[in-house]
């Protein structure tokens, strides 16, 4: 009897130990908006400021094409005719662009999985905790890729690979083997940072920046279905608005 009790106590202790450790993790759950906020774009507390995002550190053979494209883009912008982009086609950002936080985002954290939903385009990424990251060619390329996470102290470390090569951030070309590593942590209870490092064979060195977010209290994420887009890209590549036929 006593042995049974002891065994039961031991079993409980074993069960409780990891649970307690998980409970000790910071809870990133909640709704977050990018910082500085849309409402107060000019109010920047340096403690919470994001870093600038440098140009992608492309190798020379890719940089030339990128520069040409940037010049074209600048010219189109100057003409008031920017090149068509994903959104004109109702296509979501994918990773890592979705983490820029165009609209609010919701984090839901479980010990075994963390989901992050960006309100724009209902984009959801799923981060599987304490699993091995498959090799990039073991998964089918997608917009959000495959993400695995683990805790490094109070920091959630997330690795993502398997992003389609045409799902780009800042038009930076990349391979499907691109690896995005994020270190996500609370700066204080109401501010979150996402330190992003992207490594790819198109780059000379890792490409890094930090996005920051502020907690939104009492916000409920809205749905976003890209339902009726009357904007279109015309034959010359310019963006236009349909004014009839709807």
């Amino acid at each position, binding site marked *: 009897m006593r042995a049974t009790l002891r065994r039961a106590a031991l079993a409980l202790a074993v069960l409780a130990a990891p649970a307690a450790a998980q409970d000790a993790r910071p809870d990133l759950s909640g709704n977050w908006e*990018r910082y*500085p906020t*849309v409402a107060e*774009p000019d109010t*920047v507390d340096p403690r919470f*400021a*994001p870093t*600038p*995002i440098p140009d992608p550190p492309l190798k020379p053979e890719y940089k030339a094409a990128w520069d040409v494209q940037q010049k074209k*883009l*600048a010219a189109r*912008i100057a003409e*008031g*005719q*920017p*090149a*068509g*982009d*994903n*959104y*004109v086609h*109702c296509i979501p*950002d994918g990773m890592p*662009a979705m983490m*820029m*936080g*165009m*609209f609010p985002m919701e984090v839901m954290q479980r010990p075994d999985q963390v989901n992050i939903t960006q*309100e*724009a385009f209902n984009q959801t990424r799923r981060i599987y905790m304490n699993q091995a990251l498959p090799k990039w060619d073991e998964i089918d390329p997608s917009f959000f890729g495959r993400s695995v996470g683990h805790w490094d102290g109070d920091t959630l470390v997330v690795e993502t690979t398997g992003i389609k090569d045409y799902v*780009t*951030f*800042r*038009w930076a070309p990349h391979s499907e083997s691109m690896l995005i590593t994020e270190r996500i942590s609370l700066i204080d209870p109401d501010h979150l940072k996402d330190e992003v490092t992207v490594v790819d064979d198109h780059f000379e060195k890792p490409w890094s920046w930090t996005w920051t977010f502020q907690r939104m209290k009492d916000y409920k994420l*809205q749905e*976003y*279905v*890209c*339902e*009726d*887009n*009357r*904007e279109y890209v015309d034959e010359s590549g*310019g*963006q*236009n*608005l*349909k*004014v*009839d036929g*709807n």
Partner: protein
Amino acid sequence: MSIHSWAGALALAGCAVLAQPAAAHHSFAMFDNSRSITLHGKVTKFQWTNPHGYLEIDAEQGKGKIKHFVLEMTSPNMMSRGGWTSRTIKTGDVVTAVVSPLRDGKPGGLLLQVTLPSGKVMLPGVPNAARYKITS
């Protein structure tokens, strides 16, 4: 810049160091922000959809004539955070709309502000609204 063509607005602004993610994710460059037109007339449709809401108006042209205009708004998500609902405007409401017109001259534009039948003025939350001149 990002894949978003709000980059245009940002580039024009001299490109803030903290390269803001999109306050708006669409280009509004097809609209002429150097001038505005004011339309008055009956709403035929107030459409609460992504990626943009739309307000359609039969605008009075004088002498009993009307012309149909399609006005683009921002995203319902942004508008709802700015106090709008899907019921802020109803079909049949007579409204006054201030609009950045389409550059190509077609009867459409970007809604900058609208006066409801109650007299209340609503702003659809155009990003960097100060860059759209109201001249009408």
